[in-house]
């Protein structure tokens, strides 16, 4: 009997010496570490026993291309001509499926349009064709009316169900914040628009089951490689730019990406300008405050030349000698 209890007794005696807090701590810490180790070994076992099958989306997915825009960097400003071209691409191509709910027509003054131009753009029916849902003032029946500068961009579909019904059950996302809601931002949008290609033979050879389904389109910049959106920009000259710029697919993709940076962050220029002055102010304030600090501390923080045993160089020598001699401390 005594021999059976010897071990627990020794453990208890040890715990008593340790103090109860540290005894429990030792137990809990060891416990968590053990369960973690158990998980790790178990995972490793599964991993080597039945390695996870490689995925086409992991191997063939590409990082977005590089895209340089005038709005990049701390001093970045929008290229208004480019934003106007981007708006034209959005109007003539993207707006067939994608809404721009958070942007209103009056915001277009940031792009360099005057009030008359904005009014004409929104309501003349020549450039912007989608009408705004409204109510007939006499009958109260649902109807539509021409857009006003105070309206937000009306979407192409009345609701999500209609949008899905028109797009093989895929929902075209709202584009207002698209460059902020995707990793890579504008560069991602640009890569996606210019990234359509035929499915590589190599992929099909390696993953015969991963053939792009009908109604989907292969695009290596899209997370799962198969995108419901058909290539929106397919031919050069699809849009005839008002400013005469040659509308290559690449150019259109760049312009609309730049435009979507503006829709997501219309205050970018104001932010950069404010940031510049705040930085200058805080630099100045830090330097001034630092000098004040030096002044206040001038006599409290005495710069004493240390000599003898307390000289850091001598202390280092002492430590070295002690380490060599194997003396603690």
């Amino acid at each position, binding site marked *: 009997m005594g021999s059976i209890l010897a071990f627990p007794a020794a453990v208890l005696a040890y715990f008593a010496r340790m103090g109860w807090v540290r005894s429990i*701590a030792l137990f809990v810490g*060891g416990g968590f570490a053990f369960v973690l180790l158990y998980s790790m070994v178990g995972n490793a076992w599964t991993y080597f026993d039945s390695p996870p099958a490689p995925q086409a989306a992991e191997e063939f997915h590409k990082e977005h291309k590089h895209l340089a825009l005038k709005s990049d960097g701390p001093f970045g400003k929008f290229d208004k001509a480019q934003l106007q071209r981007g708006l034209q691409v959005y109007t003539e191509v993207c707006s067939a499926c994608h809404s721009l709910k958070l942007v209103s027509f009056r915001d277009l003054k940031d792009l360099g349009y005057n009030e008359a131009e904005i009014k004409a753009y929104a309501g003349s029916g020549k450039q912007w064709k989608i009408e705004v849902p409204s109510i007939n003032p006499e009958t109260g029946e649902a109807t539509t009316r021409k857009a006003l500068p105070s309206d937000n961009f009306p979407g192409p579909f009345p609701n999500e169900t209609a949008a899905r019904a028109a797009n093989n059950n895929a929902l075209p996302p709202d584009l207002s914040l698209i460059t902020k809601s995707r990793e890579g931002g504008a560069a991602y949008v640009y890569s996606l628009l210019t990234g359509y290609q035929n499915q590589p033979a190599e992929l099909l050879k390696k993953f015969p089951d991963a053939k792009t389904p009908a109604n989907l389109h292969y695009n290596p910049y899209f997370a799962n490689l198969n995108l419901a959106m058909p290539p929106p920009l397919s031919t050069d000259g699809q849009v005839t730019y008002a400013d005469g710029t040659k509308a290559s697919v690449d150019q259109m993709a760049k312009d609309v990406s730049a435009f979507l940076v503006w829709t997501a962050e219309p205050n970018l220029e104001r*932010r*950069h300008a404010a940031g510049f002055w705040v930085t200058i102010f805080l630099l100045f304030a830090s330097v001034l405050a630092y000098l004040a*600090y030096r002044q*206040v501390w001038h006599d409290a923080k005495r710069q*004493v030349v240390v000599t003898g045993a307390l000289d850091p160089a001598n202390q280092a020598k002492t430590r070295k000698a002690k380490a060599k001699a194997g003396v603690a401390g």
Partner: protein
Amino acid sequence: MSFSWAKPYEPTTPFMKWLDERLPLPRLVYGATGPGYPVPRNLNAWWNFGVLSAIFLGIQIVTGIVLAMHYYATGDGAFNSVNQLIMRDVNGGWFLRYAHMNGASFFFIVVYIHIFRGLFYGSYKAPRELVWMLGLVIYLLMMATAFMGYVLPWGQMSYWGAQVITGFFSAFPVVGDPIRIWLLGGYAPDQAALTRFFSLHYLLPFVIAGVVILHIWALHIPGSGNPTGVDVKSEKDTLPFHPFYTAKDGWFAAFFLLLYALVTFFVPNYLGHPDNYIPANPLATPAHIVPEWYFWPFYAILRSFTLDFILPAKLWGVLAMFSSILLLFFLPWLDKSPVRSGSYRPIFKRFFWLLVLDVLILGFVGGAPISPFRTALGQIAAAYYFLHFLVILPLIVKYETPLPLPDSISSSVLHGEAAEAAPAGQTTKRRGSSAVAVAR
């Protein structure tokens, strides 16, 4: 408050005298953050972060109150009130929102540095145990506030973050699900959850401010610690808080606000997640649900438990995650070394830096998508986290010979010339410079 040589408040104008006799508020301020609070003269830059965190709490409260004036706590309106009304239509709304968003991140940055400073210099040790524990209460309240604040824009990460974090409770058997439903006011995050999170998000910062007052009060009883960990022995060891530490904190605050401004104005979304610019959608789960960066180490601990062992893996994860913070409350009794400062503890010092590295690794693992390698790395790092606090810290003291401590704070700063050191408040002349009044 704490030392016999602390300067008592003397009202200088008849009005202040009148006020002091009726409501001694100026006396309180004078003794707490004025010339009446003697502070060790050898504090290094790591001691600036306490004041800095108070500054960030202030920034959060001020920007938050204004943002709340323009925010709609409804499932339909929340996303647009943030991303259209505040970001586009409210004058300067974009600035308030980015300042608040990044203010939260910077609040956590300074608080983490403040906590690690406490860990290194043994600030949790007697007689400052309650200072440490009140600090942890503040930290827990900050976590709750930050989590609920992140839910308010009602983006995808808001929604799914709320889903995952309230899901912790359902790991507990029997009581778990009813608690979760009670917290959310429904089976999933919805209008009820959003409104109560908004209400609490507005309330908790003021609770934090209250606990901050207790934290400072408890600190001022023994007085501030210092990098040597040696107690204050005489007037020579201290300087009055004002003007010395107001000046030091002042310049450092201006410098740190500069860093904060650079992020806020030039890369305001760098610390956030793009998915939160997609409106909440209960039907579409994001590919990688991750919390904000300041929760990543804990998220890594949660996800590190992958296999059932007696208890379900999820319950282990939740228990470990809660324990990882709660164990810090026991630190004063886990680390029994009589030496406070890590500078004089050769073994402790190495493990401390290992812990810093460990938490950084946990942060990396918690923020990245799951992969077999990263999961294994996270498991090792999580195991080290617990071993560090619960096994290594209690045991170090047995094997460690601390370095000799300086006799006093002033001798550590002034080296051999302590005898010649001028007490604060005296005028000295040196190196041909004109006389400078030190503390007036």
